[in-house]
């Protein structure tokens, strides 16, 4: 049984703008899937239709046998605890500490009052600390989030999602605002999460080279339709052209020479780690 099944999902905004048209996908457990495509192709909308931050106009979304698009509010909240989300702009509460932000990942499991008061038991606190330590943030635990660098903020975002103990992570352009070395750290963490913790990762990306390097599978979207679905090895200049159109072709082609297994142009050295 697949973890996630998207069947004929369409999303139409304001009765005229078609964001998604008849998307069908299956995603298995532990898969690392990148979704690439030009801006406005519907990548973000697709991710948000999965945890119903956006309601699809038609079609069905199944996650662990739950039909998400028909769940009542309370059940939807329970299912959402199983789906972590990571954002381009991190979306942390900047005035709170790193620790408090990470613990927000538990809110879906708590009673209203405990969540309101910010009461977390010792198991939750220990788990939060362990995740932060695993992401290399043990020095920053009690810093306020607005004192962190972009790369550190994104790791806090990932920690928050992981503390949900999710089955799946939805990452909406997690490295679009980061410099190359921070980007590499974030992608390495995501890859480790999918391989070692068997958590499915669905990642929207703008960087074709990154998608090729890290993914088990790449989905290309253009104008709300899936135009490519396959392993990175099958990506060719022609397919890039199909996804992005002819204009982008030449720019991406230079990056395109990278194949999986090759080193990325980012120098992966201690420098990168020290920077974060």
């Amino acid at each position, binding site marked *: 049984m697949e973890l996630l099944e998207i069947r004929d999902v369409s999303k139409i905004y304001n009765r005229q703008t078609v964001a998604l048209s008849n998307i069908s996908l299956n995603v298995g457990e532990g898969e690392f899937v990148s979704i690439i495509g030009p801006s406005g192709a519907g990548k973000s909308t697709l991710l948000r239709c999965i945890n119903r931050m956006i309601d699809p106009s038609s079609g069905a979304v199944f996650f662990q046998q739950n039909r998400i698009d028909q769940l009542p509010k309370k059940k939807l*909240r329970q299912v*959402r605890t199983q789906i972590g989300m990571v*954002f381009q702009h991190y979306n942390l509460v900047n005035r709170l500490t790193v620790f408090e932000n990470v613990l927000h990942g538990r809110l879906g499991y708590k009673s209203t009052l405990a*969540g309101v008061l910010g009461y977390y038991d010792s198991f939750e606190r220990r788990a939060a600390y362990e995740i932060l330590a695993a992401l290399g943030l043990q020095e920053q635990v009690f810093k306020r989030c607005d004192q962190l660098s972009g790369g550190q903020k994104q790791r806090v975002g990932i920690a928050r999602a992981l503390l*949900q103990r999710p089955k799946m992570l939805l990452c909406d352009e997690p490295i679009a605002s980061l410099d190359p070395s921070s980007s590499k750290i974030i992608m390495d963490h995501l890859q480790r999460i999918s391989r070692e913790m068997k958590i499915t990762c669905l990642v929207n990306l703008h960087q074709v080279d990154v998608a090729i390097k890290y993914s088990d599978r790449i989905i290309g979207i253009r104008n709300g339709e899936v135009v490519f679905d396959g392993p990175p090895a099958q990506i060719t200049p022609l397919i890039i052209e199909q996804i992005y159109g002819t204009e982008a072709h030449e720019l991406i082609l230079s990056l395109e020479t990278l194949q999986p297994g090759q080193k990325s142009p980012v120098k992966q050295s201690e420098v990168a780690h020290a920077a974060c």
Partner: protein
Amino acid sequence: MTTVPRKPFDKSQVWLRTVLLLLTGVTLYTLMQLSAPDLDQKLALMADNFRLMFSESHFKHLTLLEGLYGIAITLSLAIQTTLIGALGALMLGLLAARNLAPHWLTSIIKSFVALIRAIPTILWVLIFAVSAGLGSTAAVIGMTFHTVSYLTKSYSESFEEIEPGVIEALRGCGARWWQIVFQAVLPTSLHPILSWTFIRFEINFLNAVAMGAAAGAGGIGFDLFMAGGHYLDFREVGMITYLIIAVSMILESSSIQLKKRLEL
């Protein structure tokens, strides 16, 4: 040679200019219609009164201690109305923020508080004076009423400035409405909330002075009214004014201090 294309026709600009032109015309006309045969005499008299008030100020019917007591009463009137108003406005503000409540509810609350705000505080106090009688009760109710509507607007606008992504992130974790309010909305907007509340406190202090005189709510405003309207002692009016200015300045500087500490 290339020519820069003409700026497209902008309706709002035309309207803005028309209105400004009209207002200028009205102002000029009014100024020309002014006539005051003994303007210089009157100005001299006014200057003399000002001199009496502010250079020869003294306490006569009032001791300094009694003046400070009046200030204390006025301050507590301001604190009470601001506190009660802030509590009410917090709840209404959450329900009036577009990113936290359904659209129909926010429009109802927003138009309701706009209606209340359109009527000045002093009128509300006088309206409540009809049912509660002139005095401190009417002043407290009337001032609280206006404070709620003022703070509801400012709070809800602060809440609306929160990044939508933060709320989305917590909803994505499965958090409930109240949890999002306490874990994200309030911590993020703490600074503007305190800031607005303090501004309203300063406004309420000045309102409370006026209420003391106009609605018989007591405090320094009543003393001011007695000095000016009853004893006709301009010098004492000046002294009380100094006292009020001093308190306002202390409030102002303490609000700046408070904000500084919160920045850290």
